[in-house]
C-alpha cells in the first residue's frame, strides 16, 4: 500500500485535474491570479527548503527561475522548437518534459552556483547568491538567440491549472518528504548548529548543496510554468527584486513551515490584487502593511511549533 503522503499527493493531483478540466469556466483574470499563486507556491516552498529548513540565506532564487523559464522557453519557442515540433507529440503531452528540462537546467546551474558559495555563511552567502542572480541576468541579456534584453516573445500558453497545481503539489510533497526523512533531519540540524552537525558526522556542505540544488530545480519548474503562462519573458523581470519578493513570502510564512508559507503566498498574492484599488498608491500601502506585519508578527504569520513525531509515512 502507498504511504499516506503519497495518497494525499495523488488525491491532490486528481483534484487539480478535475478543476483543470472545468477551468474554462473560471474567468481569465481569476485563473491568471490562481495560476500565479500556484507558481509562487512552488517558488516559496522551494526557497523555504534552502532558507527555512537548511538555514542558508539565498537571495538568488529569481536567477534559477530565469534559467528554468529560458530553458523551457527555448524548447517550445526558441531554437528547440524545431525538435519540439518534429516530435509530433501533442504539446500538452510534451509540456511536463519541457518543465522537467527547465528544472534540470536550473538544478545544474544551482549546483555550479552552490558548490563553491555554500561554504560562505549568513550575509556573505546572501550577497554571493544575489551576485550570481545578477550574473545570470546579465548573461541572459547578452544571449542574442534568446532574445537578449528584448526578451523571448510568443511563448505558447501551455500552463494549465493541472500542470501548475500538479507541480505545486509535487513540490510541496517533495519538500515534505525530504524534510521528513533522515536527510531532512540533516537539513534541520545544519540550520540549527553547523558545528554540532559536523560533529554528528553530517557532511554539512553536502546537505546544503542537496537543499540548494533541489530548491533550484523547483524554481526552474516554476520558471517554465511562468514563461508559458505569461507568454513573454525578459531578463529584467528576474532581478533581485523578484528574489526579495520570494524571500518575503518565506519569512512571512514563518520560515521552515510548509503550511505557513503556502498561506503566506496566498495572502500576499490576493492582498496584492486587492490593493489594485489603490492605483499608483498600491505599493505605498503594500510596503506599509509589510512593515506593520513584521512589527506585529516578527516570527512570521504562522508560527505554531510542530511537535515532530515519528512519522514514517
Amino acid at each position, binding site marked *: 500500500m502507498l504511504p499516506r503522503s503519497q495518497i494525499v499527493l495523488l488525491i491532490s493531483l486528481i483534484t487539480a485535474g478535475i478543476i483543470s478540466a472545468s477551468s474554462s469556466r473560471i474567468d481569465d483574470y481569476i485563473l491568471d491570479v490562481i495560476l500565479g499563486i500556484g507558481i509562487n507556491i512552488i517558488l516559496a516552498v522551494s526557497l523555504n527548503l534552502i532558507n527555512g529548513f537548511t538555514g542558508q540565506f539565498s537571495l538568488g532564487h529569481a536567477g534559477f527561475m530565469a534559467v528554468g523559464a529560458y530553458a523551457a522557453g527555448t524548447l517550445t519557442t526558441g531554437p528547440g522548437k524545431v525538435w519540439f515540433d518534429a516530435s509530433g507529440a501533442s504539446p500538452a503531452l510534451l509540456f511536463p518534459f519541457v518543465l522537467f528540462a527547465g528544472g534540470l537546467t536550473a538544478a545544474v546551474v544551482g549546483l555550479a552556483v552552490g558548490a563553491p558559495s555554500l561554504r560562505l555563511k549568513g550575509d556573505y552567502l546572501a550577497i554571493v547568491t544575489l551576485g550570481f542572480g*545578477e550574473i545570470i541576468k546579465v548573461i541572459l541579456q547578452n544571449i542574442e538567440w534568446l532574445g537578449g534584453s528584448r526578451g523571448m516573445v510568443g511563448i505558447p500558453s501551455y500552463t494549465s491549472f493541472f500542470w501548475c497545481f500538479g507541480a505545486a503539489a509535487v513540490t510541496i510533497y517533495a519538500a515534505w518528504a525530504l524534510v521528513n526523512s533522515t536527510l531532512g533531519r540533516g537539513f534541520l540540524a545544519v540550520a540549527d548548529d553547523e558545528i554540532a552537525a559536523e560533529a554528528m558526522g553530517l557532511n554539512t556542505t553536502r546537505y546544503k548543496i542537496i537543499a540548494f540544488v533541489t530548491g533550484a530545480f523547483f524554481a526552474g519548474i516554476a520558471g517554465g510554468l511562468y514563461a508559458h503562462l505569461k507568454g513573454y519573458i525578459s531578463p529584467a523581470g528576474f532581478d533581485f527584486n523578484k528574489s526579495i519578493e520570494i524571500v518575503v513570502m518565506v519569512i512571512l510564512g514563518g520560515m521552515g513551515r510548509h503550511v505557513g508559507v503556502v498561506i503566506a503566498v496566498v495572502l500576499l498574492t490576493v492582498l496584492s490584487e486587492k490593493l489594485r484599488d489603490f492605483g499608483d498608491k498600491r505599493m505605498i500601502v503594500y510596503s506599509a502593511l509589510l512593515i506593520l506585519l513584521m512589527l506585529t508578527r516578527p516570527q512570521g504569520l504562522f508560527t505554531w511549533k510542530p511537535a515532530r513525531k515519528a512519522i514514517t509515512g
Partner: protein
Amino acid sequence: MIEFLQQLINGISLGAIYALIALGYTMVYGVLRFINFAHSDVFMLGAFVGYYAVKKLGVPVGGLAGGLLVLCLAMSICAIVGILIERLAYRPLRSRPTLSVLITAIGVSLLLQNLGQSVFGANPKAFPRLFPETNLHLGQLSITSNQLLVIAVSLVLLAGLHFIVHRTKTGTAMRALSFNATASSLVGINNDRIISFTFGLGSALAGAGGILYAMNYPSIDPLMGTMPGLKAFVAAVLGGVGSLPGAALGGLLIGLIETFVAGTGWSTYRDAVAFAILILILLLRPAGLLGKSRSDKV
C-alpha cells in the same frame, strides 16, 4: 597610456562615491549586524532635500556658503529620518532574528521609494549646481572639480569616522556594543542611545553622499539610490563588512573594476564581472578583504 590614466581617474572618482555610501552600510552593520536596506533610500532623500532646499526654500547656490548650508541641511534631515526609522521600524525587533529586521528594512526601503515617486514624481529632476564648478584639464586628461571634491570628502569622512570610532568615548561604546550587546549594557553603556547615534551618523553620511552624488550626476529620481546602494553594499562586503577602511577599499576596488571592465570592451558584462570578482574574493577570503573572520569557538 593616456586612456589608462583617464580610466584610472574615472575609476577612482566612481569608487570614492561607492566608498562614501559603503561607509554608512558598514557602520550600521558593525553595530547591529544587519543590512540596512533603507540606507540607499535615505541617500536618495538627501539629494531631494538638496533639490528642494534650492528650488523651494531658495537657498542661494553657486557660492561656498550656500552649498555648505544645503549640505548641512541634507545631513541633518537624513540623520533625523535615520533615527526615526531605527526607532519606529527596527528597535521593536531588536531581540528578533536579523531576518525579521531585514524584511522590515526592505519594507522601509520600498515605502521610501514609493512615497518618493508619489510625492516627488518619477521624472528625473535636474540637480542645481551647488558649488562653483570647473573642468580641469591636464594635457589630455580631464577631471572635474566635483570629482575631486568627492574624493576629498570621502577621505575626510573616512578619517573622521575612524577618529570617532577609535578615539572617542562614544566610539568605544560602539565597538563594545558591536562586540557584545549584552555585555556592553552590563557595563553601563546605553545601547539604545549608541544605536540611535550610529543610525544618525550613518544616515547623515548617506545624506552627504546623496548631495555629492547628485552634484556629480545631476539627474535625481526616487529610485536613484538602488543601484549605487547595491554596488556600495557589495563594496562593503568585499572590503569586509564592519570594517571602515574595508568599506573604503571595497568601494575603490568596485569603482576601478567597473571602470576598467567597461573601458576595455566588456561593458555589457560590467556588472557580471564586478559580481564575479566579488564572489572570487569571498571564496578566497570569506570575511572580505579587511574583515576579521569570526570563527565559532568550539
